[in-house]
């Protein structure tokens, strides 16, 4: 980034599935303000619909 140019310390994450959530958490924990945009009524994405996950057969929720 060229010196003197305006830099905004915020990031927008579009999509609140497992990837979006992880990206948002990492950024927030590193000192950036995060706006998460999700088109559905809740975050979680397709992973929230999975029953269990490999290899431990942990509950996906």
């Amino acid at each position, binding site marked *: 980034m060229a010196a003197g*140019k305006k830099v905004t*310390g915020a990031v927008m994450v579009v*999509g609140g599935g497992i*990837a979006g959530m*992880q990206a948002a958490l*990492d950024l927030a924990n590193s000192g950036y303000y995060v*706006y998460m945009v999700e088109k559905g009524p809740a975050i979680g994405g397709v992973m929230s619909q999975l029953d269990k996950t490999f*290899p431990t057969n942990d509950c996906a929720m």
Partner: protein
Amino acid sequence: MADIAGDEGDFTVKVVTHPRYVDTSKCIACGACTPKCPAKVSNDYNEGLDKRKAIYVRYAQAVPLKYGIDPAKCIKLTKGKCGNCEKQCPTGAVNYEDTETTRDIQVGSVIISAGFKPFDPSAYVQYSYSKYKNVVTALEMERILAASGPWMGHLVRPSDEKEPKKIAWLQCVGSRDVNTCDHPYCSSVCCMYAIKEAAIAKEHSHSGLDAAIFFMDMRTFGKDFEKYYEKAKTSGVRFIRSRIHTITEQPDKSLMIEYATEDGQAKTEVFDMVVLSHGLEVAKSSIELANKLGIELKSTQFVKTTSFAPVSSNRPGVYVCGALAGPKDIPLSVVEASAAACAAAGKLSSARGTLAQTKEVPQAVDVRGEVPKVGVFVCSCGINIASMVDVKAVVDYAKTLPFVEFVENNLFSCSQDTQDKMAQTIKEKGLNRVVVAACTPRTHEPLFQETLQAAGLNKYLFDMANIRNQDSWVHAAEPEKATEKAKDLVRMAVAKVALLQPLNEVKLSVNPAAMVIGGGVAGMNAALELAGQGFTTHLVERDAQLGGNARLLRITAQGEEVQPYLDGLAKKVMDNPLITTHLATSLKDVEGFVGNFKTTLAGPAGETVVEHGGAIIAIGGQEYQPSEYMYGQDPRVMTHLQIDAAMMNGELDAKKVNSAVFIQCVGSREPERPYCSKVCCTHSVESALHLKEHNPDCQVVIIYRDMRTFAERELLYKEARAKGVLFVRYDVNQKPVVKKDGDKLTVTVRDHILGRDLLIDADLVGLASAIVSHKNTELAQMFKVPLDEDGWFLEAHQKLRPVDFATDGVFMAGLAHYPKPLEEAVAQALAAVSRAVTVLSSAEMSLSGTVAFIDQRKCVGCGVCWTVCPYQAITQDDKGLAVVNEALCKGCGTCVASCRSGAPNLRGFTTQDVMAQIEAML
């Protein structure tokens, strides 16, 4: 997201919020609205297998746990009648007049993680998905198997809700197929989820389910995937290599599958249910979004990225991660997510902390010496607890317990307004201990602890009684007994909490310097990103030059040349003033812990000590040196890396090769290395294409077990077939044989279709040699991190923490974790940086107060505790007695249980606390 303007570092994004018709600040998710809603609609969360109401929450654990109205289905919104939910709502949250709002948001970077859309298999006429009820998609199967699904996890088939005895999974539905769906790619995840579903369905079945998976190639290429596949085979899941041409419904709604086996036989078999393993595709809405943002897509419609910048789109400042940038599984999506976070933050580091706020916590009141004044908050959890447990009786009972000062029932203790009220009550009543009788501490303890802190109480003066998961949910049939149990649990919690003392959290300063071990592609990328974000970085490389295994690689799967990239990368590393490169150097010793490591390096100039706050292990892997197929006995038998190197330095002239044979799985998927090396199938196809390009008449044969050209690598496989490369499958029990006949080199292999031996003369035999780990136990021990049985570094959680270790402050990237292609190594490097920066960017970090301490008067120095401690947090002091390093202790309590003299104790869970709980129970 409606529009975007501006450039990298300073975007203005127009965001449209669609009306929800429920005010989320008022909704307490009590659920009163739903029973009275007359509109029953298909439940998309359960893939349409059951119904929900027009006012709904997507699922019980939804975040935010707030209701919303489906405007297309609500009778009030569509016809102007009804209004029941508004009448039922106790907080006046329903608002039919809610409207769309638009706002502009200023951000420096944008990450697009729009995910994928599961393929709709209706297009396949032969599978009759929309016609036959018992043909379901894999996602529907997930819902059928889920406890929160339409049949509460009971394995039944949709037509008659009877338990199926035989289920078939059909692979590659909507993948590896251009005719029906124009998806030439492999969806990467279906083989694994089909095996998982089959294994879980077998567990759920009462009658010993017969599960069969019909497939073309089993693509179990990830970490521990192959073992899972082998386990499924042993547990009786049948794997049938075949092509299916017709499914016909029988009078009893079961389904007859007609298929052709590999050797051309036509067969039929009847199943009670058929699951279509449908693939991943990009949603239309995502394509429109990409077009709006000016983001380039590939022919497959996934976002175009390069192997060297795997999370960057073509538009500067806009990053992508997850399945939107190619079909991939959860761990890789999580890796890319952290990588995108790293890349997005990389350009904004000058503005770090300018907009993010940290929570101000008031100074805690010192309650030591005060008589315990316990507040008990009993939660109804809507109807989750209250419908089974007599909450009022529990409240009355709690009032009679010793030291209890205040008791209250809340509909939802976790709602924001209740939290505020709770903090108020703590202050007003002067409470100095708090018990919440509600759900599980695993999810809610941090929330309530925050409320204590807001009220000026030390957060450890708190306990939860789990009267939901361990009571109302499991004793639904016995409400009276459930109420008694709730009282018992509350009594135990009160007895314990009265004894609790405030705990201090150790504050550690963090040294904002990093160490990266390994100077390959992963290590160099990690070092550059760290330096780019302003952190001093030490890059340690064992060899005298940077580059690692990639020095021997010709091209990536996307066809990019590796060497120019590698040279550029190495130059950038050497030129970066924040990176100190230690070549021909190895680690001798590591002291300390997260935030404060002290590492001794041994290099050409002797030993140096480097202090750093975090470390990334990127030591790579190595190529297996084969002992089979005449390797080492004839120079024409070469491994992949040798072929690549020879092609690059001109020793191997592709124009002069007239017959080449590649043998797959050399050293991989064998009893001593029961894993797939992930990259070799693609590597052989790349080399085959290179030979064909320079000499189209060259006969190239690839001898394989399963072609594992996963994701968009499938397009290379397709191209190779189109260009005349021959693929011959071999059985592991009948391996090909390489022989020297005079000057001639021959390969004999049993053809899977003809059932006869083929004899091939070869000028070149390429061995797809396995990738093996360095099994670096010394390094693992120095950083107190584990290796798995194959010698790969073992992550904290395979799905959700793929680059973290259980040990704080240490991360991993690249082949050290598992074999992987270059772009995944780069993504992992960025992800490890992102994770490391969450530590390095904080000036100090506080550690949990729940740590062990040793009563040295009781300690005899026997050494049991420091032997059993899984975090190596206990050491011997100069008197020979045990001492705990609080920075390393995770509060697991293993030392407490192991000590014969009762010297160790765990703060917050002392023997006294636990005994008080037990006595209260008895």
